[in-house]
């Protein structure tokens, strides 16, 4: 009878599992702002998808890849600092997305659902897409994990030791774009980065190895999804923000717990 709840839970857990390792990488490589930029670009992707009647996920991934490409090109030019570039791309694409969505003839879009997620209306097919994409991303991360860690530690050293640094970095950006595309329905474009980095930041305090941190972050993210859905059910709050509130709550608890232990 509560089918929509189970579907929401399944979608949320699929995203949470992938948020662990991907979020850890984002934290280690200080890519939080980049993730934010991709997430904002996703809105533009939705607009494009509606305009051309493409599937949302495909459109989002295409726009995210375009943004990543533009960023790589401009970074090589070294005319502006990366955070300035990201600021331009991030807010430029967010604004453009919002404008484009209102200009589409005949389309009535639920702006709130896009910005803050709409997990309760997720369909069986969408859950399937989430799990399929999550499996692909997990597999790619698993294969590339040693190289990803090596470039996190020291790029030049990794290059001398034979890691194909540029290729690995490009794949990481692509994977992040995929994660943004599947997370959008769960927490919305404005909160995707939060779901990635907050569980990882909490997990850091307990981890001795990178893998421990990634796995613990996945578990915390799954816990936050469950707690967020529960809170939403009983308190009638929006689901996406509730998930992020719970993740933040865990983070604060971790801080307090650690503070007492020392």
């Amino acid at each position, binding site marked *: 009878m509560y089918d929509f709840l189970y579907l929401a839970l399944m979608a949320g857990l699929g995203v949470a599992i992938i948020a662990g390792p991907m979020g850890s990488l984002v*934290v*280690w*490589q*200080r890519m939080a702002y980049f993730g934010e930029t991709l997430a904002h670009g996703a809105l533009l992707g939705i607009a494009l998808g509606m305009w051309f009647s493409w599937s949302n996920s495909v459109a989002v991934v295409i726009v995210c890849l375009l943004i990543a490409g533009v960023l790589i090109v401009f970074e090589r030019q070294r005319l502006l600092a990366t955070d300035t570039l990201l600021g331009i791309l991030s807010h430029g694409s967010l604004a453009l997305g919002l404008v484009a969505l209102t200009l589409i003839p005949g389309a009535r879009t639920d702006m709130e659902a896009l910005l803050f997620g709409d997990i309760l209306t997720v369909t069986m097919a969408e859950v399937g897409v989430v799990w399929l994409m999550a499996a692909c991303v997990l597999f790619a991360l698993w294969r590339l994990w*040693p190289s990803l*860690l*090596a470039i*996190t*530690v*020291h790029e*030049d*050293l*990794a*290059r*001398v*030791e034979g890691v194909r640094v540029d290729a690995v970095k490009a794949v990481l950006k692509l994977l992040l774009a995929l994660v943004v595309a599947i997370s959008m329905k769960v927490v919305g474009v404005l909160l995707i980065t939060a779901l990635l980095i907050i569980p*990882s*930041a909490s997990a*850091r305090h307990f*981890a*001795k*190895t*990178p893998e*421990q*941190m990634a796995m613990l972050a996945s578990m915390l993210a799954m816990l936050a999804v469950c707690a967020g859905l529960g809170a939403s059910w009983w308190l009638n709050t929006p689901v996406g923000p509730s998930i992020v509130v719970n993740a933040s709550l865990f983070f604060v608890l971790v801080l307090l717990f650690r503070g007492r232990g020392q």
Partner: protein
Amino acid sequence: MTALIELQGTGKSFANRAVLQAVDLSLVPGRIVTLIGPNGAGKTTLVKIVLGLLQPDSGRVQRSVQLRVGYMPQKLHIDPTLPLQVERFLQFANTNSAECSAALERVGIAHLIKQPVSGLSGGEVQRMLLARALLRKPNLLVLDEPVQGVDVTGQQALYQLIGELRDELNCGILMVSHDLHLVMAATDEVVCLNQHVCCHGTPQQVSVDPEFVALFGAKTALYTHRHDHEHDLHSGIVNPSASVSCNHGSEPQNLPGERARPSDSKGGSESDV
């Protein structure tokens, strides 16, 4: 002896500004070459060309087919959010844990194997980086400022270790350094770089070269050879007319206990008598 790597007439510019011009460099097994030069002299660029991270605009780079490079980067910045133990850090270069332990043992920090990298001191980080370079079983070690962030005693110990490794592995070593006085004692050949090779040769030759003195000042040149004058017990200068050449007439690397310290040339320590 065949060179491990040989650069001829190497040039490189960034944004139309020449950083390196017509640089020749040859690295052979069993020989320590130290690259010195002021900031912006192109030391890092030259190192990156040797490592193959950068392609030169002009000139020729010839690598021996057996070349295996162990690289020790200038700075290791590991984000404190990344939990990483020393052993795991080494496994990027070589996954065999017995070899990792042996390498740590060799650089004298075997006890740190399970420690988090973020908690290491400057000297320990340098030794860990050296261990990772050794794990590649290199015949060429490229060490970019290997004693950075290490106190003077630790610097001497590290240079001594590098010298020992050269003897054990019979590998070529290319070192970059700022600290002229200590590094001079630990090196076979000095290349003084300021976009072009100003001068090169043994430490003794280089330190009296007019171009070297112009770049680093006479004082620095004196530091590298510790005694330009001698003191009596009352700190009076006994022999002020001594030239900048090394009074002791010895190869500095043969005198591990006699490495120059800045304070030695200033103060009147009794050992100077």
